[in-house]
């Protein structure tokens, strides 16, 4: 069963957090990813740039409305995702609990309904 872990947290930068904190976060993420990989549960993942760089598009009556800024202007933003394949929700909760992001934000666990293999939904 595939679950996507969505990491929501208050965004920080080198200026607000300091270089040492950023470096520590990166080390923790490297170690977490290696642990997921070694356990054979890691499907993929991505850390996103800050929502300052995000653009949203919506098409109404054939016209595309392109806007700068995130979909929801909230204090905590989606900062990255990791997809894992584990037997059940308890296993997913256990991995979410160990995510470094759980220390400084919230980890949301969504069961996957359908995913792509070679361009086909399965």
């Amino acid at each position: 069963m595939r679950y996507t872990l969505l990491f929501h947290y208050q965004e920080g930068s080198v200026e607000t957090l300091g270089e040492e904190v950023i470096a520590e976060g990166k080390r923790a993420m490297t170690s977490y990813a290696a642990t997921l990989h070694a356990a054979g549960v890691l499907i993929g993942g991505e850390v996103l740039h800050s929502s300052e760089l995000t653009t949203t598009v919506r098409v109404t009556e054939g016209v595309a409305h392109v806007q700068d800024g995130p979909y929801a202007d909230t204090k905590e933003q989606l900062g990255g995702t990791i997809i894992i394949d584990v037997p059940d929700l308890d296993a997913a909760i256990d991995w979410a609990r160990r995510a470094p992001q759980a220390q400084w934000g919230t980890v949301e666990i969504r069961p996957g309904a359908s995913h792509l293999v070679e361009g086909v939904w399965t």
Partner: protein
Amino acid sequence: MSADEARAAAERAARASYGKLVALLAAPAGDVALAEDALAGAFEEALRRWPATGVPANPEGWLLTVARNRRRDVWKSAAARTCAPLTEDSAHIDPLADHDPYAIGDKRLELLFVCAHPAIDETARTPLMLQTVLGFEAAEIARAYAVPPATMAQRLVRAKKRIKQARIPFTVPDRRSMPDRLPPVLEAVYGCAAIASSPAGEAQYLAVTLAVLLGNEAEAWGLAALTTLTLARHRTGFVPLDAQNPSDWDAALIDEGEAYLRRADPSGPPGRFQLEAAIQAVHCDRRRTGHTDWAALDTLYAALLIVAPSLGARVAAAAVRGRIDGPEAGLAALPTDAESFQPYWATRADLLARAGRDATAAYHRAADLTDDPSVAAFLRSRA
């Protein structure tokens, strides 16, 4: 055998085995709703057939076989084929084919942990147990919670969908997770006892089953003792504890409850349910000694207020203080933040009356705040 006898036999089988059968049927694919439908079909078939054939030697096994066949029919049906692909696990699993239902009663325990899983909405946990483990109808549960039947039905459907689609596992947590996972299960079973307080004692049966299956969890034995001792004093209509005649209590249940309390052998300080059970045991002991040991209650409430300082416990502790040091001391010990809490007004009224002060307004306030007509009638008669 008459239709009435068949119905009574089916109802007995339902009470004893409903949760076990739902657990067995639901576990493989996590589909509680399908298990309940299949089981409801099996009970209907029992009511049709048993009057002619008599109750089978193993009614539980009979119901399981029929329900299993019905569930397989759903999986094979055209609707299932065209609406949704058979998932890999639903296509080949039938782990129940050869087993003896008496040999694996543990599945019921797993169902309890599913119902009180942290990923299930807290307000849905007790209703889910009442329905899937104890076999109550959604409409009955809705009545107990004073919400519209459609609201309760929706809450239950949502919870079951979550169990299936988020894949909440049918497992008993390991010892490492038990300290986090057991308390919500005990809370939900306790909630069942508060709601299903019928003389049949369904929730007491569930609490005892939980304690037996877990073996060595002190708080589970505490809850088994608490529900058993409460059931021993159960009666229809309200009579305040003081005015109850101990010879009306069920002596066998009191012995049983005390035995469960002795089984609770905590490795650390006793938890909330053991303390509440001990408080009940002190009250029940009036049957043997003819008086209430207020000093023992005082000690137990002092411990309870450290472990679980609920408003109810604080009010009850003040009532005990009133018995030991006089009603004025009891009034002074009452919590001050309980203006909308019915037991506060009932206790305050009683303490005022004992102190020889005017208790009329407090009795009326207490009567207004209760949903139970027999409690309201008693309080108004005192005012």
